[in-house]
């Protein structure tokens, strides 16, 4: 059963130095508050996993919390580069970053394989592409029925997956809505999981029998952190701050401005500070 606890305690108990950590969210519901708590608690040597590492992973990389990253698209969507990620790969600042690079299709399949308790995923992928030449974790498998050669990648099995969701009930059952990405698979593939939520409610009341629900017995910890996805968004609560994503480009471009921003906005803040971003409005783009 999931324990409902503070974000500080959830991270302290579940995220350890050296862990393989997936903080998922495909543009939507990115667990910023939880990622910042990981930075505040000074976790080190993390191996980060995410399909679309964006600003949050730029921050974790920039503070030196990561030894490596497995990913399929590392940019600031619609804006440009992740400058801290680039600085780590191109100049090894603040430390070298080992990368394991895949395609989206492979990562999505690999999470699904993890959730399904399979050792690897297969897909019709990477045909004619160069990634298999530089990533030894992209191999092939031959179909025993047709002889077709398919790409194979290892299942993703994080030590801990962290996601943000709209709401949980008091038992710790979790509801996700909107662009649900690969979060369900990422939680089910992991040994432990933390879910931060906008609201904790008496009745979960899923809007459809087919809603995406993670039952309390499949989640380790639930923390109430309203606004915890900002500057990403929570469908039905608050919109994505595209303005902040655009601004991040200048903040992260320079090591000093980045470091100052982290001190002011991460190290010197608390999870409760996110609440000012929480608002129940239509999730129109901002």
């Amino acid at each position, binding site marked *: 059963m999931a324990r409902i606890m503070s974000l500080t305690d959830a991270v302290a108990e579940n995220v350890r130095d050296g862990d393989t950590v997936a903080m998922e969210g495909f543009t939507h519901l990115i667990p910023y508050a939880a990622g910042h708590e990981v930075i505040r608690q000074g976790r080190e040597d993390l191996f980060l996993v995410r399909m679309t590492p964006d600003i949050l992973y730029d921050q974790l990389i920039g503070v030196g919390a990561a030894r490596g990253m497995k990913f399929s698209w590392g940019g600031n*969507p619609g804006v440009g580069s992740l400058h801290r990620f680039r600085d780590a790969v191109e100049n090894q600042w603040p430390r070298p970053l080992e990368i394991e690079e895949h395609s989206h299709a492979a990562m999505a399949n690999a999470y699904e394989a993890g959730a399904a308790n399979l050792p690897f995923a297969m897909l019709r992928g990477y045909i004619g592409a160069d990634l298999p030449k530089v990533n030894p974790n992209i191999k092939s498998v031959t179909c025993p029925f047709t002889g077709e050669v398919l790409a194979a990648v290892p299942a993703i099995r994080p030590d801990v997956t962290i996601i943000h969701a709209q709401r949980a009930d008091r038992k710790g059952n979790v509801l996700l809505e909107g662009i649900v990405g*690969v979060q369900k698979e990422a939680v089910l593939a992991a040994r432990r999981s933390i879910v931060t939520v906008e609201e904790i409610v008496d009745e979960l009341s899923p809007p459809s029998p087919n809603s995406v629900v993670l039952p309390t017995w499949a989640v380790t910890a639930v923390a109430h952190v309203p606004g915890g996805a900002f500057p990403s968004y929570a469908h039905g609560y608050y*919109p994505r*701050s595209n303005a902040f994503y655009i601004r991040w480009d200048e903040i992260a471009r320079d090591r000093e401005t980045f470091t100052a921003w982290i001190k002011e906005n991460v190290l010197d803040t608390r999870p409760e500070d996110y609440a000012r971003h929480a608002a129940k409005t239509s*999730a*129109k*783009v901002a």
Partner: protein
Amino acid sequence: MMTDFTPTEMMTIAAARELSNDDVCFVGIGAPSAACNVARLTHAPDITLIYESGTVGTRPDVLPLSIGDGELCDTALFTVSVPEMFRYWLQGGRITTGFLGGAQIDRFANLNTTVVGPYDHPKVRLPGGGGAPEIASNCGRIFITMALSKRGFVEKLPFVTSMGHGEGGNTREKLGLKTKGPTRVITDLCILEPDPETKELTVVSIHPGVGRERIVENCGWPIKFAETVIETPAPTETELSVLRDINARTKKAHEGAGPGKEAA
């Protein structure tokens, strides 16, 4: 026909014209997204636009900044998980057309969005492939849109992120692919098509007011022209006003609203 338009506007509108109501189109972010939505708002109102975040049949009022803006989900017919998107819909062969952009392209329409320089010691680390490697192989055909420049249209790619026509000729068939691969490349100066035999990209249409020299000068390989080269029809008033309106709405939405101040 209008005479006052920018090369980028011409590119977006020429790209939009490639699409029809029957297309089920996997949309890349940026220039492809603008073209696909101009098509939807002009001659192809029933086109199905799909973004890799899982939104199917989306009809955004403003162009998304990211592939997963809330606008896409709010206006979609339905939204699926990312594994379902890549497994059932893309790998399942349900997508007629993939619309891609890229940082670099070669004469066989292979794309690079991964690195400039050696992979292990890159001069510039680009974002990577995302969905592109499997979009390029699993969609029925691929359209590519990017501005023509020496930096972008290169003799040799440092890295093949997604394959177009590989080494040319029948590379795709040899690899067992049944999809067509890139069939049109729409730039800000001209439109290219792979030669039916060699698969080398060849100029088939030149935008109004553009001379052949300018195309030659802006391409990193000695570019060939088809035997018959037509002039791309200039944008119509409707096409231009639809494009300018959506760009204006988009700019306002991305810069204006929303808390732009420091994140916590």
